[in-house]
C-alpha cells in the first residue's frame, strides 16, 4: 500500500549564492551562503534544521559531511546523492520521504560548484583544462570519445534522421532561454542571441555547437523543505510539493531506444499521477538543460508534445515568455548558468510564489514542473510544485 504525499510538504525557503565568477569561494563556501539565505528567506534559524541532503559523491561536489562541518550542523538525517544532475530534484523528494518517515522535520537541500574558478583560478587550472581528459575508459577513449557533448550529439543525430528535427529547431531553445536570461540580472549570459548567430556558431560535436551547451559558472542554490502544516506559519508563500517521480534507465543511454525515449517518461507519469494533474495543467517548466537536445527530448517525454514533434513544438515559440509553456524562465543552464539543475528548483518555487516582477513572472502561475537529468545520462527525476496544496 502506498501513501500519497502530494501537498503534505513544501519548499518554504529559497536561497542562492553570488553566481558567475566567484573566485574567492569554493563549492562548500558557495553552498553555505546559499543555505544561510534559504533559511533566512523561510524565517527559520539554524537550530530548526534537522536534515541535510546534498549532492555527492566526492570533494568536487558538496558532500554533506563537509557542508555540515562548515555550517556547524548536527542533524538527525543527512546524506549525499549520486544521481548526477537528477540529484537535486530527487533530493527534494527524499526530504519529503524522510519527514514522512519521522526521521526529521526541516531539511536543507542544495548544491554548489565552482566550475568557472576550478578551470580558471590558476595557470595550473587552465593547463588542466587544455590537457584534459585525465582519465580514459576502454571502448570509447581509443576512438576519441571524450566529454559529455558527444552523448547528446549522437542522440540529436538519431532524432534528426528519424523525425526530421533540425538545427534551427534546437536553436529556438537556446534563443528562448537567452531571452529569459536577459531579464535575470544574475544570469551569466546577458548578450542577445539570434538564430542566425546560433546557426553560424562554432561546432563542438556536430550537430551540437557552442550554444547547444550549458555555461559553467560558480554558484550554489539551496531550499528548505518542511511540512505543509508548518509552512503556513512561515514568512513566504509555500511552494507545495505536489508530485515527484523517477525513471532511471540504467541499461544505458546507448541501449535500446533510451536516447530517443528517456526515463523522463516514467518520471513524468509517476509525478503527474501523484499530483493528480497532466501536462496541460503545467504553467511553467524548468527543464534540465545540459544541452538543447535534452530539453527537446524531455518536452516530448513529459507529454507536452508527441514523440518526434519536439522540433516543431519549440520552433513555435512555446518556450518564450508569451508561449504556451514558458520554460527555464531564469535562463536555464544554457544561459543563467549550470549548477546541475539546482537553480531551476529555486526558479520553480519562485514562479509558484509569484514573486518575480511582471516581465519575468508567469501569469497566474499555479503549477511548475522541475526536472533533473544526469548520472552519466541515465537518471531522470521530476518534481511538481504547486501554489496550492491540492
Amino acid at each position, binding site marked *: 500500500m502506498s501513501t500519497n504525499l502530494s501537498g503534505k510538504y513544501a519548499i518554504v525557503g529559497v536561497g542562492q549564492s553570488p553566481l558567475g565568477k566567484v573566485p574567492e569561494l569554493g563549492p562548500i563556501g558557495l553552498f553555505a551562503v546559499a543555505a544561510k539565505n534559504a533559511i533566512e528567506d523561510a524565517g527559520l534559524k539554524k537550530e530548526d534544521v534537522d536534515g541535510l541532503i546534498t549532492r555527492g559523491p566526492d570533494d568536487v561536489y558538496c558532500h554533506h559531511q563537509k557542508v555540515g562541518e562548515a555550517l556547524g550542523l548536527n542533524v538527525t538525517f543527512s546524506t549525499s546523492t549520486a544521481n548526477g544532475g537528477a540529484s537535486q530534484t530527487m533530493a527534494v523528494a527524499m526530504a519529503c520521504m524522510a519527514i514522512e518517515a519521522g526521521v526529521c522535520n526541516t531539511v536543507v537541500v542544495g548544491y554548489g560548484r565552482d566550475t568557472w574558478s576550478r578551470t580558471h583560478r590558476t595557470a595550473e587550472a587552465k593547463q588542466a583544462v587544455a*590537457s*584534459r*581528459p585525465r582519465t*580514459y*575508459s*576502454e*571502448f*570509447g*577513449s*581509443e*576512438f*576519441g*570519445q*571524450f*566529454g559529455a*557533448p*558527444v552523448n547528446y*550529439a*549522437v*542522440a540529436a*543525430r*538519431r532524432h534528426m*534522421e*528519424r523525425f526530421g528535427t533540425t538545427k534551427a529547431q534546437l536553436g529556438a531553445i537556446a534563443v528562448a532561454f537567452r531571452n529569459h536570461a536577459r531579464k535575470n540580472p544574475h544570469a551569466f549570459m546577458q548578450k542577445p542571441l539570434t538564430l542566425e548567430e546560433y546557426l553560424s556558431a*562554432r*561546432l*563542438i*560535436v*556536430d*550537430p*551540437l555547437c557552442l550554444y547547444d551547451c550549458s555555461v559553467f559558472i560558480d554558484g550554489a542554490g539551496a531550499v528548505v523543505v518542511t511540512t505543509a502544516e508548518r509552512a503556513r506559519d512561515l514568512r513566504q508563500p509555500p511552494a507545495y510539493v505536489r508530485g515527484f517521480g523517477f525513471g532511471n534507465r540504467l*541499461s544505458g543511454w*546507448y*541501449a535500446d531506444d533510451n*536516447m530517443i525515449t528517456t526515463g523522463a517518461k516514467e518520471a513524468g507519469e509517476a509525478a503527474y499521477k501523484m499530483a493528480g494533474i497532466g501536462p496541460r495543467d503545467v504553467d511553467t517548466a524548468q527543464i534540465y538543460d545540459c544541452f538543447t537536445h535534452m530539453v527537446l527530448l524531455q518536452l516530448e517525454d513529459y507529454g507536452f508534445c508527441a514523440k518526434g514533434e519536439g522540433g516543431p513544438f519549440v520552433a513555435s515559440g512555446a518556450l518564450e515568455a508569451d508561449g504556451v509553456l514558458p520554460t527555464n524562465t531564469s535562463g536555464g543552464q544554457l544561459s543563467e548558468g549550470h549548477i546541475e539543475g539546482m537553480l531551476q528548483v529555486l526558479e520553480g518555487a519562485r514562479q509558484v510564489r509569484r514573486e518575480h516582477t511582471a516581465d519575468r513572472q508567469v501569469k497566474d502561475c499555479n503549477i511548475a514542473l522541475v526536472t533533473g537529468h544526469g548520472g552519466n545520462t541515465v537518471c531522470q527525476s521530476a518534481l511538481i510544485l504547486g501554489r496550492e496544496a491540492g
Partner: protein
Amino acid sequence: MSDYNKPLPPPSVESEPFWDGCKRHELLVPRCDRCAHHWFPPAATCPECWSTDWTWARVSGKGKIYSFGVYHRAYHKGFAEELPYALVVVELDEGPRLTTNVVGCKPEELSCDMPVEVVFDDVTEDRTLYKFTPANDG
C-alpha cells in the same frame, strides 16, 4: 617504440579475451548459453536472464550505424590532426552496440542505418582496435 599517440586504456579482467580476439582479427562478444542473448560491453552475467553461463562467441562483424557525432574540437592531442572525426555507434546484426570509428568514409558520408562491417587496425605491436567500414554488398 611505437609513436602511436592516442589513448589505449588497459583491458579490464573482463575484457581481456575480447582484446585478445581483436589481436587475432576476430570480433568476440559474450553470448548467453541459456537464452542466446548477445551483449556488450563484457560483463559476468547475462543482462537478460542473469545466467552466469555464457561463451565468447565470434560474430559476423556485420551491422549498421545506429548514430554518430562528429568532433570539431580536440579533447585529446592524439585526435587533433583527425578533426573533424566521427565517433560512431554501430549496432551489430547480433544486437549489441559498440562505439567505434568508421574508416574509408568521410564524416559527411555517414548516415544512420548505413550498413558496415568490421575491419581490424593493428595500431601497436600489442593492441589491435576494431573499426568498421562501409559494407561491400555482393
